[in-house]
């Protein structure tokens, strides 16, 4: 069936709404009252996470087993099993949610499927052991709304992730999907559409934060019969998976937004540049594009307006630099993925030399909501210059690893300690890295700055695409800088000399420092080199590549100094500076360490104190793991 008019679209929405209403978290459940079919309801929905992370933990098997079990009990007509996108709380995945009981099961295993059906659905009792335990109160929490992880979040870009079936366009439509597109092409001029985006204050979520409306305006003013709308889905920051989750959980929001942009700038063609190592995202995008075609929401003459728009998918081979828009365009053209100097900007000369507007996945995901709820609503969220929300992939030494979305202006402290639940294993917070390899490491003193483009930049980091990696006292900041620089050296395209050779040389200096051979002069050399690379590189990747080094040098210089002067690594990460030592007062002379040492570096008679010959020791750690009395330590 093709949707010909707004009425057709509204009809589909009305038909699909019932199914979704069940998923409204109306009454937060607190008590232990009956649930499942026992409650007398005749329609239950079990949502299982179908994101890449939970899938890797067998969530598909969980769903299959739940279905089997439902059949065994003969209740498959009453209980639906729906695969959704990512819920965000990846630390506790796989997630299974039962609605309308508003029950959020965590760390579910395929073996738990039967119990969920038997106990919860049939027996009417929640499976207590699968509920989330609040680490502070030690009380179990039934629903997500009462978890600290979700409490401070505002989900706009992620609004449909973990809620709808991403492979069913009707569920998207039930959530007002494609209403914004209909509204734009039926009632607004392209200039009005651009004006709404401008007024919303939305800025590019790919990292640099360029105002989206202005970008559209530039492309709209370029005179050309052929223009392109591109979705940059070349997510490349280590640890970041915001874009993947949106594509997997809500692909239609991207499609709708791209079509709106196509209308606004006068483009008929859309291209999604996605890395080939995101097969699930590609599958969901393809499914969504196919369904949108079937319904006539993509293709020729959409809603009878004469506006036509189509989207094709292009695969990237996973080069970080291809997230840079000119490199991305070259890659799509079949050329080497290398940036070229701007100007000319893609809005003037982009894909195949035609005007092209490139936006990031998360930016696109915000667009339909802005039209649904109005630019003023969107602009009311966030700070003066950074509007709306930002999705972060929270990772590292933090209790609640996962995907979060917070209003701009939220502080790092709120994210790390409230949403993130603080540092793992009660360790001490040391640094938080934002902005991926182009960002920087911020410290304790930065924890209360609001998260927005300007504040993070001023603190020596950047917003970036949304990677946020938390580090504790066990992280060596020299090693952290070296990790990111290693990534950059691996991912530099090799076009311009400062980035190609400069980063390599910086990495070599860091190698020298962690090998215990660094000097104070090396630190100056690092800083000088970093500043030149920043000042003289061709593209954004090169210009920001020294940030991890510069920010760690600025914020953790004492740690660098310890490495080069005292040859000491306080985090005990730089093996060159550490030795395995047998504590004489703990050693009982059991000889186990000596027996297991592969290089015979340990000497000592049975029942006598043992000693490690540091000249012979290869620092493999076998002795320490074999000592039952914890007499061996790394110092």
């Amino acid at each position, binding site marked *: 069936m093709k949707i010909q008019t707004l009425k057709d679209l509204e009809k589909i929405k009305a038909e699909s709404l019932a199914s979704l209403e069940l998923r409204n978290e109306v009454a937060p459940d607190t008590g232990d009252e009956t649930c499942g079919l026992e409650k007398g309801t005749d329609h239950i929905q079990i949502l299982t996470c179908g994101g890449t992370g939970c899938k890797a933990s067998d969530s598909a098997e969980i769903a299959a087993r739940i279905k089997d079990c439902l059949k065994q009990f003969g209740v498959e007509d009453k209980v639906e099993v729906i695969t959704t996108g990512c819920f965000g709380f990846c630390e506790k995945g796989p997630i299974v949610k039962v609605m309308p009981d508003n029950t959020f099961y965590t760390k579910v295993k395929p073996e738990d499927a039967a119990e969920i059906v038997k106990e919860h659905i049939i027996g009417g009792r929640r499976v207590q052991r699968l509920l989330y335990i609040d680490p502070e109160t030690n009380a179990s929490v039934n629903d997500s709304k009462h978890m600290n992880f979700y409490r401070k979040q505002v989900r706009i870009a992620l609004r449909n992730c973990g809620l709808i079936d991403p492979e069913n366009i009707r569920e998207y439509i039930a959530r007002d999907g494609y209403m914004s597109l209909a509204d734009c092409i039926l009632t607004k001029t392209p200039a009005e559409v651009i004006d709404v985006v401008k007024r919303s204050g939305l800025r590019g979520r790919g990292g640099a934060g360029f105002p989206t409306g202005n970008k559209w305006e530039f492309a709209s003013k370029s005179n050309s019969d052929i223009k392109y709308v591109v979705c940059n889905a070349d997510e490349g920051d280590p640890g970041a998976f915001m874009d993947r989750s949106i594509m997997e959980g809500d692909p239609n929001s991207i499609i709708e937004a791209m079509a709106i942009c196509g209308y606004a700038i006068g483009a008929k063609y859309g291209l999604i540049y996605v890395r080939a190592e995101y097969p699930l995202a590609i599958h969901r995008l393809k499914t969504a594009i196919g369904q949108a075609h079937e319904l006539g929401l993509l293709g020729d003459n959409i809603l009878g307006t004469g506006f036509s728009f189509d989207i094709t998918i292009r695969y990237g081979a996973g*080069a970080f630099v291809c997230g840079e828009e000119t490199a991305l365009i070259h890659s799509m053209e079949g050329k*080497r993925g*290398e940036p*070229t*100097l701007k100007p000319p900007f893609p809005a003037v000369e982009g894909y195949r030399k035609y005007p092209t507007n490139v936006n990031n996945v998360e930016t696109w995901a915000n667009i339909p909501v802005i039209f649904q709820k109005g630019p003023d609503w969107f602009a009311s969220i966030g700070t003066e210059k950074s509007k709306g929300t930002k999705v972060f992939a929270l990772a590292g030494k933090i209790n609640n690893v996962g995907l979060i979305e917070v209003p701009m202006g939220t502080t790092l402290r709120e994210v790390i300690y409230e949403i993130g639940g603080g540092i793992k294993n009660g360790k001490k917070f040391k640094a938080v890295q934002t902005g991926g390899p182009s960002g920087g490491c911020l410290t304790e003193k930065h924890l209360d700055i609001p998260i927005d483009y300007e504040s993070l930049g001023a603190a020596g980091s950047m917003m970036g695409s949304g990677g946020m990696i938390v580090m504790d006292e066990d992280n060596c900041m020299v090693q952290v800088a070296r990790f990111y620089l290693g990534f950059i*050296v*691996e*991912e*530099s*395209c*090799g*076009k*311009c*000399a*400062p980035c*190609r*050779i*400069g980063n*390599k*040389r910086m990495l*070599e200096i860091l190698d020298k420092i962690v090998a215990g051979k660094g000097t104070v002069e090396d630190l100056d*050399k690092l800083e*000088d*080199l970093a500043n*030149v690379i*920043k*000042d*003289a*590189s*061709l593209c954004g990747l090169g*210009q920001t590549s020294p940030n991890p080094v510069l920010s760690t040098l600025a914020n953790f210089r004492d740690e660098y100094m310890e490495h080069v002067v005292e040859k000491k690594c306080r985090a005990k990460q730089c093996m060159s500076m550490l030795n395995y030592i047998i504590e004489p007062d703990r050693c009982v002379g059991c000889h186990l360490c000596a027996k297991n040492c592969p290089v015979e570096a340990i000497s000592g008679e049975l029942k006598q104190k043992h000693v490690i010959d540091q000249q012979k020791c290869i620092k493999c750690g076998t002795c320490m793991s074999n000592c039952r009395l914890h007499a061996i330590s790394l110092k």
Partner: protein
Amino acid sequence: MEQNKINISIDNRPVSVNPGTTILDAAKSCGIEIPTLCHINLEGTCVNNHPASCRLCVVEVAGRRNLAPACATTCTEGMEVHTNTLRVLKARRTILELILSNHPHDCLICRKSGNCELQSLARKLKIHEAPFEGGEKSCHELDKSVSIVRDMNKCILCRRCETMCNDVQTVGAIGANGRGFNTTISPAFGLKLSESECTYCGQCVAVCPVGALTEVDNTNRLIKDLANPDKTVIVQTAPAVRVAIGEEFGLPAGTIVTGKLVSALRKLGFNYVFDTDFAADLTIMEEGSELLERLKKFLDGDKSVPMPILTSCCPAWVNFFEHQFPDMLDIPSTARSPQQMFGSIAKTYWAEKMGIPREQLVVVSVMPCLAKKYECGRDEFKVNGNPDVDYSLSTRELAALIKEANMDLKSMDDSDFDNPLGASTGASVIFGATGGVMEAALRTAYELYTGKTLDKVEFESVRGLEGIRHASVNLNGFELKVGIAHGLGNARRMLEDIRSGKSEYHAIEIMACPGGCIGGGGQPLHHGDVEIINARRKAVYEEDRNKPLRKSHENPYIQQLYEEFLGKPLSEKAHALLHTNYFNKSK
């Protein structure tokens, strides 16, 4: 203030430039030389490499967050540029130090020593120590083809060669492989040049700023042959050599040194010094006759005659169509190039005349070209394994040899070529410039076809540096349409038009190198100065004007050759000795 001009200041000096001017050119216009390395722009031709990748030309622009590459940043009104602040100098020096940190420091034994742009920059920027030692210098094997040597250990990734090979020549033999620090310029999959579609045009060598791309050196082989009393060593020199080799000895570009060159060659020990121009006249006789023959059949309604006819003097061009247009092998003229016609005649007609056995005769050519090294090794041009032309030297190699022999070309006396293979007309000299072969052919074809004498031998409309040019000549009421292309990218366009039936030409001249042979891959390096190409071009036409005879068919020694040996153009003997066929080399 002038209207429509952009007013900026560079180092506090006001400068007024046309819109679209780069900071680099604006600075040049007021005498400020900003150093560059990757940038090259032969204005007026299609050669333009400005990837802004070496970053040596960075300058400070007031109000801009980071430094701007002068080569690729256009001036805007009110721009305030500083080219020598501490920030700029420090960045520039650091970048050069970085480049040098991954470049061998063996300048003393480098082929490019003294002519290396990186070396000059290191001197200009006073780099006297290497602060960024360490890190593996890339370790690539030397790739030696018959014409070009690739030493990728010396490559600084300026990508000029890539631009030449891909954008200008559209050959696509080499490009960047790998990424980041491991990026290498090479044929796809790290193949050798000889396994690629390389035409050996040598334009990559012509623009390489360092010693990464050089020609195969045949000078030592020549020294041995010259010292061998059992060998008779003869030499032929191409038209474009005489207008360029003076540059290697400090003479201004475009100085004609034909007589001095002959003296130098003789002093080097060649037994006979001949001229490729003689063979160029012979080429016109054969190619011109072929054109007229095909044209006659065509005009008689024979649709099986392939039209247009394409010239075949340029060996890189021959390689190009053999690789890339194997479906059109019947279109080019079958006439061999002047170098090969010379070799063929020298080792038959002349050797017989002189009583020199073929195996004792060494024919050497001095060419502005690197593809000639490949061409003389082609199997079709050998008799029982003995090549018609034994080997070829570039203009640069000959200059080096003359210097090594303690001679200064400047102070040589003039002397004349030996005969009979040294006599030539003005028509043959202009073979050196794009459009020259066509002009020479027109001079002869016109007179042979119409039976009338040309009033004016110059065909100005076929001259110039525009990539594709065309002209028409009235032959007794028939409009002969001719086209000229130089640079293989332009040649490709011509060929694609022919393939799709859009071409209206009857004859087309194609030269692989921008500018023709004067801009060949074996010529003294122009380092991006288009004025050098222009000066050589003017000199070629001046040499033509100075010649008493200016039409190939008037060359008395050519007439004698036909009378004594070949019979007439396109005779059976001429076909056997002066024509060839082409092979499908597509990969």
